[in-house]
């Protein structure tokens, strides 16, 4: 066993990279759930975003256009969920599962012929001066644009929910949709927008996996990231700041287990690969005591005539 092969600076830097996909997806789902909608299709939207972003980036040669396409791909898929749950008034759990199953099939179909290709590289920003600081530079200031965008998004969602009128309306719709409707707020419209935002975020997260984290396209490559993102929202007690904390925790675990695999540590690779999922369960168990934070109307169908 040779643990000296693990460089703590590199480890922390790759932790930031590893946490970005689930951070983006969880942040989107947080907004959706605060609006009172439970979208279990995160995995499906993520993988659709992963292939949309990958295919467009390969064909245009521009990762930026790829990320934009991924956001659109995720949002379009989430629109299907919105149609089912907000207009056809279908069960949200079943619709979310349908979205995931459909997304996995769709992405496999779109991904024909994209296996084994390298995507155009996403440049890191290397912020001048700051990135030259020893230790802190490579950990915090030498990443690509998406990492900073994700962090900015955390701040934006937090501020939006806490300080703006739009955030207040969104929360009202999520806490009690009948009361919000009686006050004249457009429950369905607010939820539709939230679902689209969630889809776009999940799409971005997926594209970050296929364009930066891996970077490659393989079928089923999200491997449960979308579900971990869902767990993250519970972990975060529906608070934006805690989502960041949770994403770093999960990013840290997955990076650590990957780094431990070649060191000859006397734990089989398969057991190390299980660890992120087992930790997710553990965290869910610990956090489940506090149910009071869940939005009041979460998962309930709204129909104006009632």
């Amino acid at each position, binding site marked *: 066993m040779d643990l000296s092969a693990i460089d703590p600076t590199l480890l922390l830097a790759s932790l930031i990279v590893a946490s970005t996909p689930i951070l983006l997806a969880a942040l989107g789902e947080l907004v959706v759930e605060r609006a009172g909608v439970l979208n279990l299709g995160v995995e499906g939207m993520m993988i659709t975003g992963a292939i949309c972003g990958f295919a467009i980036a390969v064909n245009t040669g521009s990762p930026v256009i790829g990320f934009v396409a991924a956001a659109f791909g995720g949002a379009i898929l989430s629109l299907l969920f919105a*149609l089912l749950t907000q207009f056809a008034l279908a069960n949200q*759990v079943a619709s979310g599962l349908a979205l995931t199953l459909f*997304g996995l099939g769709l992405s496999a179909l779109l991904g024909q012929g994209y296996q084994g290709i390298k995507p155009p590289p996403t440049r890191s920003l290397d912020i001048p001066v700051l990135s030259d600081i020893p230790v802190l530079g490579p950990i915090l200031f030498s990443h690509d644009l998406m990492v900073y965008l994700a962090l900015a998004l955390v701040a934006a969602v937090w501020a939006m929910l806490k300080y703006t009128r739009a955030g207040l309306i969104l929360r009202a719709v999520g806490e009690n949709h009948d009361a919000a409707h009686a006050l004249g707020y457009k429950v369905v419209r607010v939820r539709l927008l939230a679902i689209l935002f969630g889809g776009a975020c999940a799409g971005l997260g997926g594209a970050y996996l296929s364009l930066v984290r891996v970077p490659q396209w393989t079928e089923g490559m999200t491997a449960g990231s979308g579900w971990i993102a869902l767990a993250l929202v519970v972990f975060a007690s529906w608070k934006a700041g805690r989502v960041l904390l949770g994403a770093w925790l999960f990013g840290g675990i997955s990076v650590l287990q990957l780094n431990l695999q070649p060191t000859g540590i006397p734990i089989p690779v398969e057991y190390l690969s299980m660890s992120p999922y087992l930790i997710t369960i553990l965290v*869910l168990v610990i956090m489940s005591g506090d149910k009071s934070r869940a939005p009041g109307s979460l998962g309930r169908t709204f129909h104006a005539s009632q």
Partner: protein
Amino acid sequence: MHPVLKLERRPQPSRTWSALAPVLAVLITMFAGGAMFAALGQDPVEAIRTIFWEPLFGEFARFDRPQLLVKAAPLTLIAIGLALGFRANIWNIGAEGQYIIGALTGAGVGLAFYPTESALIFPLMVVAGALGGWAWAMIPGLLKVRFGTNEILVSLMLVYVAEQLLAKMALGLLRNPEGRGFPGSRSLRDYPSAHNAELFAGTGIHWGVVAALIAVIFAYILLARHMLGFHIKLSGQAPRAARFAGVNPARLTLICLGISGALAGLAGMFEVAGPAGQINIDFNVGYGFTAIIVAFLGRLHPVGILLAALLMALTYIGGELAETNLGLPAAAIQMFQGMLLFFLLAVDLLTHFRLRWRRAEVA
């Protein structure tokens, strides 16, 4: 004011639409699927015919028809268990994991006795498979009952854990010692006492098919005649009323998850001892997830599930045919199955609501 389309909730879900919705959804999926195949550069009519007609009445149908039962059996077994939970709002979506664990424990018990021949080995494997799946489903069950943990997320996380465990077993403990280093266990087909063989040659009927039929009958009686079935339905439709009626939600959660886990474990055990033949890294092919579609398509009703499982098995076999004959990508079938659930959920609007043209008014 112009008339607008309004939704009016039906006092009772329409029985007619409840039965018609799956049929309508299948038809719409055929059209949408045909459009998708056309977009892929295929003749849509030919593709649909290859998927839905060829396996039943085509030139080589006598090879395909037995496969229908082989594939429908695990789907039925798993979906029956899932449907019991879904009716009570208990969402086990990790059946794929329970299926894997059932196969591991079932095959493990069989292989432990190798090369002893005894009529007791197969029944022991059946029990072990059911217990394995049951135990795996008890994890989300107990965590939900004890800590209030969400069973959807826990059962799903355990699928990935089970997949890793499968890989570990195929390369480690259960690996064939005479396999010259290849991954995978001994072939259970070459071990008569553990082999889940065809009961009638050329029909595809193995013990798993028998078990699936028994499960359908038991589930039917349970839901139609038994107090537990009534409690399951009551908990789903009116949780508060169920509590007043003395239903213990924790007990119901454990029972529903336990039954569905055991049935998924059985499905895995019958599959590994028969059609699959050995434990290997790529043993599971997603039956646990497809069974979710089967459960909904069958209206969570045992007989409906049997029919839906046969239809879904048909798309698997027809999909393989379309892949070899027409070069249709395998992923197209996966998407096709996903679409089916989408359309079903959309069409289901008509079961619960009436569409009415009304004059627009201030909402």
